[in-house]
C-alpha cells in the first residue's frame, strides 16, 4: 500500500468568532502512527477534520505525500473525496440501509473496481477484522463492537494512503476497548499505513502510537514518543493530563548540581535531584514532576546517595492492580502507587525514594 507523509504548517481553524486551532505545526512520517491527545475542546478533532478536508481552515498549509491539499496562499483546497484518505468516525457512521458487505464495498465501488475484485477484497478485509460470517447481515443489526470492525474494514479496504481515526474506541465499554486497542495496533502494523489518531484516552495513545502530540486550547503542548510524553513531561499541563504525577515545588539550587542533574530545595528543606526535559528555569518557584508509580517505599533505608527521604504512611487504598499510599513527606502528602503487595500499614515509618531520571524539572 502507498504510504504518504503529512505536513501541517501554521494551521488555524475558526468557527465563527471562535478560534478552535491556533497555528499548529507538525509532521507525520510515511508509515508513522501519530496520535493527537488532549482534553475535549483542545482542537484535536478539528485538526483531524481539517486534514481530512471536512473542515476548511482559515489559514496555514496541509500537504499529503508532498502535494498541498490545503493552502491559504496560494489558495488550494482539495475536496475531501479527492485527498485519497480514509477515516474511522467516532459514531462509526455505518449506513443502516446497507448490508455489512455493501458498507465495506462502498469505497471500492466508488472507485469503479470490477465486481470480482470488490468481492475478493471485501472478503479479505472482513477476514482481517474477524467478521467473515457477517457479510450478508444488515448493518443496522450489529453490536457496537461489530459496527466498530465494519467501520475499520470500510476505511482500509480501498488502500487509502492515510488512515484517520476520530476517537474510534470511545463508544465501547472498558473491556472491549482494551481488546480493540490491541487489535487496532495489530492491524495498523499489518497494513503498514500512515495513520493519525485522535483520542482523549492516555492509555490508548500510549499503546498505539509511534509519536504523540499533546494539545490544549488549540495549541501544541508537547510532541514526543509515548515514553517521552509519559516520563518527561515538559510542563504542568502535560504532567497533569498524562496520568497521575506528584508536583513538587521548590527553589533551584544550581550550586549543588553535578553530572547533568538539576536540584531543587523544597520549603521543608528536602533536596530533590532530577533531570530537565527542556529549558532549565531558574529562581525560587520551580516545579518538579514525578509519577506516582516511579516512587518507591521501603522500611529499610536504600543504599542510593540522593533522593531518599524519611516518611510516614497516612492512608493505604487497595485498588486491585496496585495499592495507592498517601504518605506524609516534607510537610505535605505524596501519592505513591505500588504494584507489589508490600506489607505496609497506616502509621508505618518508611523511606521514600526516587530515581532522579524520573524527577523532571518542568518549564512552567
Amino acid at each position, binding site marked *: 500500500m502507498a504510504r504518504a507523509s503529512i505536513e501541517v504548517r501554521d494551521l488555524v481553524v475558526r468557527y465563527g468568532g471562535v478560534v478552535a486551532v491556533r497555528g499548529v505545526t507538525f509532521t507525520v512520517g510515511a508509515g508513522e502512527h501519530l496520535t493527537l491527545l488532549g482534553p475535549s475542546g483542545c482542537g484535536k478533532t478539528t485538526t483531524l477534520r481539517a486534514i481530512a478536508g471536512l473542515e476548511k481552515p482559515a489559514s496555514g498549509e496541509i500537504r499529503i505525500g508532498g502535494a498541498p491539499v490545503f493552502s491559504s496562499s496560494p489558495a488550494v483546497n482539495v475536496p475531501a473525496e479527492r485527498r485519497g484518505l480514509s477515516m474511522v468516525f467516532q459514531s462509526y457512521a455505518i*449506513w443502516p440501509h446497507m448490508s455489512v458487505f455493501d458498507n465495506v464495498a462502498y469505497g471500492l465501488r*466508488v472507485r469503479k473496481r470490477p465486481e470480482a475484485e470488490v468481492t475478493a477484497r471485501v472478503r479479505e478485509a472482513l477476514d482481517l477484522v474477524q467478521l467473515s460470517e457477517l457479510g450478508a447481515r444488515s448493518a443496522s443489526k450489529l453490536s457496537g463492537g461489530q459496527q466498530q470492525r465494519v467501520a475499520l474494514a470500510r476505511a482500509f479496504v480501498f488502500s487509502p494512503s492515510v488512515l484517520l481515526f476520530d476517537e474510534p474506541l470511545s463508544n465501547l465499554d472498558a473491556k472491549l476497548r482494551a481488546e480493540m486497542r490491541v487489535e487496532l495496533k495489530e492491524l495498523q502494523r499489518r497494513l503498514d499505513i500512515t495513520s493519525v489518531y485522535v483520542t482523549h484516552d492516555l492509555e490508548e495513545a500510549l499503546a498505539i502510537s509511534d509519536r504523540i502530540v499533546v494539545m490544549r486550547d488549540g495549541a501544541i503542548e508537547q510532541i514526543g514518543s509515548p515514553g517521552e510524553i509519559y516520563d518527561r513531561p515538559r510542563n504542568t499541563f502535560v504532567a497533569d493530563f498524562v496520568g497521575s504525577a506528584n508536583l513538587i515545588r521548590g527553589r533551584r539550587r544550581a550550586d549543588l548540581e553535578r553530572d547533568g542533574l538539576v536540584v531543587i530545595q523544597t520549603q521543608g528543606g528536602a533536596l530533590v535531584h532530577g533531570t530537565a526535559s527542556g529549558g532549565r528555569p531558574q529562581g525560587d518557584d520551580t516545579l518538579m514532576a514525578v509519577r506516582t508509580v516511579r516512587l518507591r517505599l521501603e522500611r529499610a533505608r536504600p543504599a542510593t546517595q540522593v533522593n531518599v527521604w524519611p516518611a510516614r504512611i497516612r492512608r493505604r487504598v487497595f485498588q486491585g492492580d496496585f495499592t495507592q499510599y498517601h504518605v506524609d513527606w516534607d510537610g505535605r502528602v505524596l501519592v505513591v502507587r505500588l504494584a507489589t503487595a508490600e506489607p505496609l500499614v497506616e502509621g508505618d515509618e518508611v523511606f521514600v525514594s526516587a530515581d532522579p531520571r524520573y524527577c523532571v524539572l518542568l518549564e512552567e
Partner: protein
Amino acid sequence: MLVGGLAAVLVLYPIAYLVQASLSVGDPQARPPEAYGLDNYAGLGRYAHIFGNTLLVAALATALAVVVGFTMGWILSRTNVPGRAAFEQLMALPYYVTPLMGALAWALIASPSSGFVNQIWRALGGDGHLVDINTPWGIAWVMALFEGSVAFVMIGAVMKSMDPAMEEASQVLGAGRARTMLRITLPLVLPGVLGAAVFVFAEMLGSFSAALVLGLPNRFYVVTTAMYQLVSQYPPRFPTAAAMGVSLFAVMFAMVWIYRRIVSAGTYVTITGKAFRPRAMDVGSMRWPFLGVCVAYLTVAVILPVLTVTYASFQHLTSAFPRAANFTLVNYQTALALDAVRSALGNSLLLGLATASVGVLLMGFLSWLIYRSRLPGAGVIEYLVMFPQAVPRLVFAFGMLWAWLIFPIPIYGTLWLLLIAYLTVFLPLGLRTISGVILQIDRSLEESAQMCGATWGYRLRTVTMPLLKPGLIAAWLLLFIASVRELGASILLMGPKAKVITPAIVESWFSTSTELTAAMALLQTLAVVAALVLLFAVARRAVQQGGE
C-alpha cells in the same frame, strides 16, 4: 441559493401585495393603488364586533382543546388505562377528520331546526331546540374537537419526556401523591401546556371552515369569514379585507413569537436524551372511567361525525328516524353525474399529485439547505419558509390573489395558481416533516461516504436519499392529503373553469341539499384513500420489480 431565493419570492411576494392593498385608500378597485394611507385600519373600528367574535371563539375553543389535550395526554402517558398504546395511535384520527367534515356532521347533529338531537328532543315532547350548533359555542366545540388532537400531541410529548425520577424523588422525601402532582408534576409540564395553548390559539384565530359552515346561517362572522365575505360580495372591498388580514396576521405573528419564546426559554429541560419509560401510575378502578373518557372523545370527534355524514349521504331527506323508504343511492349518482364534481375531484387529485411531488423536491432541497449546507443566511431562509405558519391560509391566498392578478403570465384562474398557492402555504408542513428526518441522520454518515471518495452526487444517490426515503414518503403523503382537502386558499383562488373539490363541497352545502353535500364529502375522503392505496400498490410493485 436559487431555491432559497425562490422560496423567499413565494412567501414575500404575496405578503407585500397584501400590505400594499391594505394601504390603498383611493378607488378600492384600482390597481395599483391611487393613494396610500391608513384609513382602512382606522375604519376597522366598525368591525370591532368581528374581532370580538374571533377572540371569543378562539378562546373558548383553545380552553376546550387544551383541557382535552391535557386530560388525554395525562391519561395516555401517565396512567395504566387499558389499551393505551392503541389509543395513542387513534388520537391522530381527529386531525384527519378535518374541521370541515366535523362542521358538516355537527350541523346535521345539532342545528336548531333539523339537527338530529333536536328532532329527537321534539319527538320526546320537548319545545323549540335543546342544542344549537350555529353559535360561537358550537363553532368552538367543533374546532376544539379537531384541535384537541394537536394539543394532545404537544402536551403528551412534554409529559412523556419528564423523568419519573423527579416525581419519585418527591415521594421518597415524604410528599404524598397529591402534593407531588401539585408541586412537582404540574410546574414541570406547565410551560409545555402554555406553549400548546398559545399555539392552538394562534391556529384558531386563523381557522376558517367551521366558522364558515356554522356561522354563516346566523350571520355570525369571524375575521376570516368576514374577509371572505368582503372579497366575494359585489362590489368587493379588497382594501378593507386586506387591512383585516394584516391585523389578524400581526396578532398571529405575535402569538407564534410568544410560543417560540415559551418553548425555547420556559422548558425546565426535562428531556435528557436518556431513555426512560414514563412510569404508568396504577390508578386502580379509576381505569374504567378514564377509558370511558378516551372512548367518549374519539366518539364525538371521529366516530359520530363520520357515521352521521355517511348516514346522511344515503338519505333522501335526512331524518333522525331511519325509514327504509328514505334510503337511497341517488346522492352518489347525482354527485358522480355532476360534471362540476367530477372535474373538481379530478383537478384536486391532480393538484395533490403535483403539489406532493414538486413539494417534496423543493422542500427536501430547502431542508438540506437550511440544516445541512452551513450556507451563510440559512437561518434567514428557515425563518422565511416557516413564515406561512403565522399566516392564515385565507389571508395568504388573498395576498396571492392580489399579487398574481397582475402577473405578466396569465395564470390567474388556472390550476397553476393553486399549485403555487399550495406549495407556498404548505412549506412549513413539508419542511417540518422532512427536516425531522434530516436532523436524525448524523452528519458523519454523509462524511464517511465523502471519506470513501464519493462525490456530491454519488453521496446523494447512495447515502443521503436512501436514508431520507421514509421521511420523504411521509412528507409526500401529508402534502397530498393536505392539498386535496385544502379550503382556505382554494376558495379564493380557484377559477370558474378550474374548480377543486373542497370549495365545491362548501358551495354545495349552501346552495344544494345537505344529503348531496354529505355524499360529496364522503366521495372526497374515499378518493383520497383510494388514491393512496393505488399509489402504495404501484410503489410496492415497482420496488419488487426493481429487486428482481
